[in-house]
């Protein structure tokens, strides 16, 4: 076991992936000498060369579009999108090409491309640096969408994403990059849960709380606080946002009868909507309360000095847990 930050764990995972397979490439803005603005690719250009860690021209459509071409040639490119808000210029290449090529070719083409996106707010940044666009990709069939929430998952999931023959949109919880915890580097991937499985992080009986990415820590802390008030909260890290691990979700909600979903993205049209709708449909007679959603308001991400009031926090999660229990 080694203590690593999420940023470092990703770095170690990427390094492993590059060591294991010479076809693995990294491409993006400032991923080379600088090691990325969050240092996730730190040192990789030096060790694997500029042909494998490519500082690209400044254009996201070009990054994803050429990555697709490299994948067609047998490479396994990992694209870094510098910030969530800059993935939109690549949207067409992701939605109309990356997501659809396997289908278009009736399975004859595989595109093992990973698109890494640091996402979410809470770092005091200017506009476009705090977005949570995951629902857009989860609504796009053909993509896998995942988010890691802690260093261990960061380390394992990035490798699983690279190994996966489907395109993967890989969300990294930007404001948790420097959170530290134990990572089993020696253990390899054997012990890691599959990339499409949710993980129960806290077991509880009263309310199920679903979360992912930066909200994982918030929800674990909320569960601890609730425990102090004798409320037993079950916290599940979804990890895979598309496809969803519905079995794990339904099993928990059938047990607790109550569910709160937490994400930073605006509630309206967010991933929580899909999950709430599915739970209601499948667990209708088990539900003691409507599935409640905690997330961003229906506004553009606000200026950073207001973001603490925008972002879901421990209090808002607990408030929702309380409301759920009051039904």
């Amino acid at each position, binding site marked *: 076991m080694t203590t690593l930050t999420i940023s470092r764990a990703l770095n170690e995972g990427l390094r492993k992936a590059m060591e294991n397979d010479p076809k693995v*490439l990294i491409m993006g803005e400032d991923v080379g000498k600088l090691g990325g603005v969050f240092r996730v690719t730190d040192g990789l250009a030096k060790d694997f060369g500029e*042909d494998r860690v490519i500082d*690209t*021209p400044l*254009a996201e*459509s*070009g990054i*994803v*579009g*050429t*990555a*697709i*071409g*490299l*994948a*067609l*040639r*047998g*490479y396994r*490119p990992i694209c870094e999108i510098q910030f969530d808000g800059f993935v939109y*210029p690549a949207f*067409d*290449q992701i939605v*109309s*090409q990356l997501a*659809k*090529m*396997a*289908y*278009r*070719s*009736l*399975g*004859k*083409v*595989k595109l093992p491309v990973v698109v890494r996106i640091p996402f979410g707010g809470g770092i005091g940044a200017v506009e476009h640096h705090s977005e949570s666009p995951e629902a857009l990709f989860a609504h796009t*069939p*053909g993509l*896998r969408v995942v988010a890691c929430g802690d260093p261990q998952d960061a380390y394992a999931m990035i490798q699983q994403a690279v190994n*996966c*023959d*489907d395109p993967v949109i890989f969300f990294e919880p930007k404001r948790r990059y420097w959170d530290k915890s134990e990572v089993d580097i020696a253990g390899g991937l054997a012990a890691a849960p599959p990339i*499409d499985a949710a993980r129960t992080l806290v077991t509880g009986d009263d309310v199920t709380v679903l979360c992912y990415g930066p909200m994982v820590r918030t929800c674990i802390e909320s569960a601890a606080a609730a425990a102090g008030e004798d409320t037993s909260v079950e916290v599940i890290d979804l990890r895979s946002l598309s*496809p*969803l691990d*519905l*079995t794990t979700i339904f099993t928990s909600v059938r047990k607790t009868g109550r569910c709160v979903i937490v994400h930073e993205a605006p509630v309206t049209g967010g991933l929580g909507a899909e999950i709430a709708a599915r739970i209601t449909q499948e667990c209708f007679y088990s539900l003691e309360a409507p599935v409640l959603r905690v997330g961003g308001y229906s506004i553009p991400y606000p200026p950073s000095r207001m973001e603490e009031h925008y972002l879901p926090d421990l209090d808002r999660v607990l408030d929702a847990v309380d409301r759920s229990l009051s039904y």
Partner: protein
Amino acid sequence: MAVNAAGQAASRPRSQDGPDFKPELIQLLTPEGERAEHPDYPLELTAEEIKALYRDLVLVRRIDFEAIALQRQGELGIWASLLGQEAAQVGSGRALQPRDMAFPTYREHGVAWCRGLDPAKLLELFRGVSHGGWDPKAHNIHLYTIVIGAQTLHATGYAMGIQRDGALGEDGEAVIAYFGDGATSQGDVNEAFIWASVNNAPIVFFCQNNQWAISEPLDRQTRIPLYLRAQGFGFPGLRVDGNDVFACLAVTRKALQAAREGQGPTLIEAYTYRMGAHTTTDDPTRYRLSAELESWKLKDPIERVKQYLIRSGLAKEDFFAEISAEADVIGDRVRKACLQMPDRDPLTMFDHIYQEPSPLLAEERAQLASYLSSFAGHADSLAKEGTR
């Protein structure tokens, strides 16, 4: 060629679209069927080679013709005709080595033919049986790309892969990316130029300037000849007579060889004309004059090869009759392939989303299966259907 842009700024208006600027059009075979020479593009072709090109031209036109007819008869949903662009496609297509990779749009039936792709595969797409469905590796021709310009980035990335594989050199590999005049306005195409240039990637950008993007004439996309775009990105561009199969072959071959040998990208503007409608759903009489069409008829890409073959005594009537008969056979074969093409089991629409189907997909598939089977022979469900 030292470009003094400051001087250019001082001496407005621009020279490249001024009356004094004459873009060179590379031509090796005149519309009248006479051989022309160009110092940079010597081309030696045997009689057999020329006849083979003629055959390609005729056959791809025939396939196209059959497809249009099939669409009219309701057998295809739509068809994008290559009529008039046969020389550009066959010339460039035959310039490719088997190991080279081609990235087509939705109109490159002539290129597909040269790569050896069964035309029935194309019909599958336009009939609505699949979105393509062929294996790009089987004949080194990528799937048709419908989103304008997107494939130019794929092609560039693929070319970067060739570099990384060390597959350059005299016998190396190269890539050709096809796109239209309209496509040059897309951000993606310009980004592809940048990537290709910065990486000195082994790629040929082959723009078929057929003068129209649906109803929009060329001047909506550019005010200077399109081949000049390349100089803004630091690689060579040239304009070739796109109705001249010899010239298209020669310039593409040379550009591909340069790419293979590590000299980077070239932009080829094949100056041609879309003789038909944009697609079978389009009505060009709404936006263009028939006089234009008539003038281009005189530049027909097939007729000039025929004239050349006749004049030079390389072929006689029996050869043309033979090709014509072969065309009919192929037309027939294409027609049969279309009419006999089985519809797919609807449940296969759930295949190939991911390498492994997700539980949700399996569930949705099962839903549709049970829904479909409810219509199949169950007397009561049929009765129910009757009431609706």
